[in-house]
């Protein structure tokens, strides 16, 4: 089953930034909803600047490359922001505008605020909602007070049917930090300061 795009996606002007301010607001809010629905459906945690899943490309971006503030990225044919059927695609400065609006509405966050090249983390659930979902699941499945690795949470057999299955590690750590702050989990680190495991408290 593939994602079913809303009918406005086949409306050519949807891909041109509208000049009239009220229409523009409507257009942007429809784009934001579409991005959230699309990422939720396809389990995309990180969206690149050109509208592709950023999960796989993340490792290839040089982390030292911090001084590059060029936000331009070619919008490709596979991108969410290209509709090949009607031969239309969004301009990258308008994509940036939509991303910034998502961020101001707390529907997204820069992976790295200093280097936008890494794309955005898309929050179809807020971090607090994710924290509740995971904590609830730990409780129901009787895994409180046991130490779990991040891998078990993300890719464990038990988690297979869960919405958070396959969650990007960067996002997962943010969620766990929420749980730590609210005294619902403890993070254990190894000698190198890497997260070795996490223990959840009783409800």
């Amino acid at each position: 089953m593939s994602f079913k795009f809303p009918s406005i996606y086949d409306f050519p002007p949807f891909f041109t930034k509208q000049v009239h301010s009220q229409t523009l607001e409507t257009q942007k809010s429809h784009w934001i909803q579409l991005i959230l629905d699309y990422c939720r459906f396809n389990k995309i945690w990180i969206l690149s600047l050109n509208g592709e899943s950023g999960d796989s490309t993340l490792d290839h971006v040089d982390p030292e490359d911090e001084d590059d503030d060029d936000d331009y990225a070619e919008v490709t044919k596979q991108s969410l922001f290209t509709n090949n059927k009607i031969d239309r695609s969004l301009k990258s400065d308008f994509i940036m505008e939509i991303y910034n609006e998502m961020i101001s509405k707390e529907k997204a966050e820069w992976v790295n605020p200093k280097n936008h090249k890494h794309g955005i983390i898309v929050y179809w659930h807020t971090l607090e909602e994710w924290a509740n979902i995971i904590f609830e699941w730990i409780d129901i499945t009787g895994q409180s007070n046991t130490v779990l690795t991040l891998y078990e949470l993300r890719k464990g057999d038990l988690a297979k049917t869960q919405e958070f299955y396959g969650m990007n590690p960067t996002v997962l750590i943010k969620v766990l930090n929420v749980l730590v702050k609210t005294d619902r989990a403890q993070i254990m680190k190894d000698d190198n300061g890497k997260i070795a495991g996490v223990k959840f408290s009783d409800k």
Partner: protein
Amino acid sequence: MSRKGLASFDRNADQQTKFQDLGQAMLRQREEQLRTQLQVFQNALVNFKQEHKKEMMKNPHLRAQFSQICESFGVDPLYMTAEDDLDPEERNNRLAIRIYEICQATRDLYGGIISVDEVIQLVTSTIQDGWQFKMNHHDVHVAVESLKVLGNELELVKIGSKMYIKSVLQEFNADQSQILTAADNIGYVTVSILRDNFHWKTARCKSNLDDLLSIGLLWIDDQADERCYWSTTWINKSH
């Protein structure tokens, strides 16, 4: 059977999964039971309304209490009976509410006008609380007329040969009506299309197009040879 050595670890893990499965199964079962109970109660409410319809019409106190109960069980008392059971006035009122809701919901996107055909399509294609309206153009007229007592918020207008419901105060001049008709027919217009077909000067085309843009009835597409002004009536059209 007690297993010794390494095998005992397997058993431990085994047991844990089993407990988890059992826990989840129990939760599911309870949820199922509650859902059935709720369904039974909702059905009872529907039956009650059918049996005591007349009494309820007469007794506002009973009606209020009944609505309250319905609300707490997530049943919309308005939408509970079958369409055939309704007297014409109540049916019309419900239609009017649906039409009003649709106009509200689509106003930002469409700029405040929506074709009667699309309204009918939207009303008849959605099932609300288990039942579906059948309606025609005449029903829409009656419903919109009846809303007039609440102010002139909705108005039926004819643009070209098509009927629309308008929920903005904006009036259209003859030029604008002509543009909207053309745009609705083929999806969009351009300045050249208007000049060639209506023999207007460029300035006349531009100023009318700008007016329609500024009330959100047209959207621009700049990825064609010439700027296209699309009609919002095509947003939900299946091509």
